[in-house]
């Protein structure tokens, strides 16, 4: 039984959300400084910022926080009491996640819920979260989601999908989780005009995505390029910082460390990046990836060759954040074109 879409007037947005927040913890884009935003749990709808461009830090944080306590421990003599922090108490809702970030969730699913071991921290959040997707009316010139199997209006992965019509949102209910919000009193049934307007916006957005990035067959291309001299030059300007990795919706490397105090402490996981020089440094002093050449190769191979080998999809959703925010203008589109020409 599929539900007809609804319309939510923007002036009712706050009231709509207040009602949602009675049941759900809402995670939405919040402006941290002018032009800088990230997903945060909000206390009131006024905190939300739905700028026309995407957030710097992706919505991946909602399932895989940058810094996450895994368990707490308390020592009493020789004994240690361990308490896991995996439980999710209230249902959650991610508001206004872009289709690229949502596509990334399904890629992260493959890593975190691989057959043998289930990452309970990620999965428990996933199970208890309703995802409200948000269409991109104005894709940026750096967006290439259509080259990675997505698109500015791709609904896959969303429980509810919003389209910004100007003074209202079109609200589509796509799954059972999404339908649970359809009884909200601030929604009214969408008119044919609303639906038509959304369709028109979708067509216009698609037209803007007209510069494809040649990703077809890149896994096979890279199979032959493991020791190609290409890697000797491509890494040169990379500073080896973590900007691209920490903003990337699909990167999932993490470090685990214990934060200890006198009688107890916690085990925490924090994001890490294979681009840091000490990432693969071993205690003996041996570093299997001693220079930027090996590290840049690792990152690119992982995204476009190793991950596809394991999970049949490339680990990139074309969000363009790495292009926008790299301090030295390392442009992955140029690298992919170069690989394609080899």
């Amino acid at each position, binding site marked *: 039984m599929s539900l007809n879409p609804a319309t939510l007037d923007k002036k009712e947005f706050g009231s709509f959300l207040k009602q949602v927040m009675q049941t759900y913890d809402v995670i939405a884009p919040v402006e941290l400084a002018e032009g800088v935003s990230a997903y945060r749990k909000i206390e009131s709808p006024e905190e939300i910022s739905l700028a026309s461009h995407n957030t710097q830090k992706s919505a991946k944080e909602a399932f895989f926080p940058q810094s996450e306590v895994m368990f707490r421990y308390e020592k009493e003599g020789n004994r240690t009491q361990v308490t896991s922090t995996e439980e999710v108490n209230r249902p959650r809702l991610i508001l206004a996640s872009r289709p690229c970030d949502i596509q990334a969730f399904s890629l992260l699913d493959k890593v975190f819920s691989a057959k043998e071991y289930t990452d309970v921290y990620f999965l428990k959040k996933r199970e208890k979260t309703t995802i409200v997707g948000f269409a991109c009316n104005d894709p940026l010139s750096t967006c290439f989601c259509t080259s990675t199997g997505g698109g500015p209006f791709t609904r896959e992965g969303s429980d509810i999908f919003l389209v910004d019509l100007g003074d209202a949102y079109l609200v589509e209910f796509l799954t059972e989780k999404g339908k649970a919000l359809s009884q909200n009193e601030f929604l009214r049934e969408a008119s044919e005009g609303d639906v038509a307007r959304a369709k028109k916006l979708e067509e216009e957005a698609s037209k803007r995505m007209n510069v494809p990035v040649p990703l077809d067959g890149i896994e096979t291309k890279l199979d032959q390029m493991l020791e190609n001299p290409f890697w000797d030059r491509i890494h040169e300007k990379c500073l080896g910082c973590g900007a691209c990795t920490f903003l990337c919706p699909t990167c999932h490397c993490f470090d685990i460390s214990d934060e200890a105090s006198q009688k107890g402490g916690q085990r925490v996981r924090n994001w890490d990046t294979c681009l840091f020089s000490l990432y693969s440094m071993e205690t003996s002093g041996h570093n299997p990836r001693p220079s930027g050449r090996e590290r840049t190769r690792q990152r690119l191979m992982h995204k476009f060759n190793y991950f596809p*080998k394991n999970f049949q999809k490339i680990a990139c959703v074309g969000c363009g954040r790495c292009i926008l925010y790299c301090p030295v203008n390392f442009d992955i589109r140029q690298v992919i074109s170069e690989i394609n020409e080899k």
Partner: protein
Amino acid sequence: MKNPYLPIPMVVKRTQVETADRMLRTLELGFLKEEDEKAFRFVPGQFCELSLFGKGEAPFGIASSPTEKGSLKFTINKAGTVTTALHQITEGQEMGIRGPLGNSYPIELFQGKNVLVIGGGFAFTTLRSLIIYLLQPENRSKVKDITVIYGARNPGLLLYKEELADWQKRSDMKLVVTVDAGDKDWKGKVGLVPNVLEEVGPASENTYAVICGPPIMIKFTFPKLMTLKFPNERIYTSLEKRMKCGIGKCGRCNIGHLYVCKDGPVFSYEQLGKLPKDY
């Protein structure tokens, strides 16, 4: 959903210094909960993440064999923060382990074949597990000849001296222990492992080789295996790489598309030939 990051509570039953330089110490750990002990099933080659709350975790090959019931043994090289703390831990103290993790030596493939084990230095830990397992009567009958070559820099650095003495006396295996340099009490062989291998000259036909040692030893021993005509698909090794989660999620220990913690640490050289030299 089982949380794979929560350690199994263990108690330290015994700690023993293995080497003269005191850098290698074996911990014997017992399970605190009976149901954990019952559920813990492992095969030689697998490893555990040893967990010291407040210090962190580090991966160690299981040195005891699944046939040695009641406890697990790990041999720790003192090198950094966690290992130094593991050297200081005392009997009766509680700690944690996560495991068994990783894959194992391909025991099923050894059936009806000869097994050649080559170990160097303190890489011998999981080889101890393998040898004791194979020597168990019901397993010994399934394998043909067992040859073990084990070398260390000097006699004081040999691990598991008691086991080595026992194995020397056995007639169902051949053990050659060698050192790079002897001392005044050493009556055994003196010679580098690759040269001793050449001397022993085991037949490669129908034989599987398992080799674990420091990179320098592997570098010079591997060509000797080639000369003896061992094919890559019958040479296995256990790799080490910096690890964190141990379950293939944190991304750190990958070699190409494979993870040392999940698809390894045991790899054949045929597999390694297709992967980047990322180790």
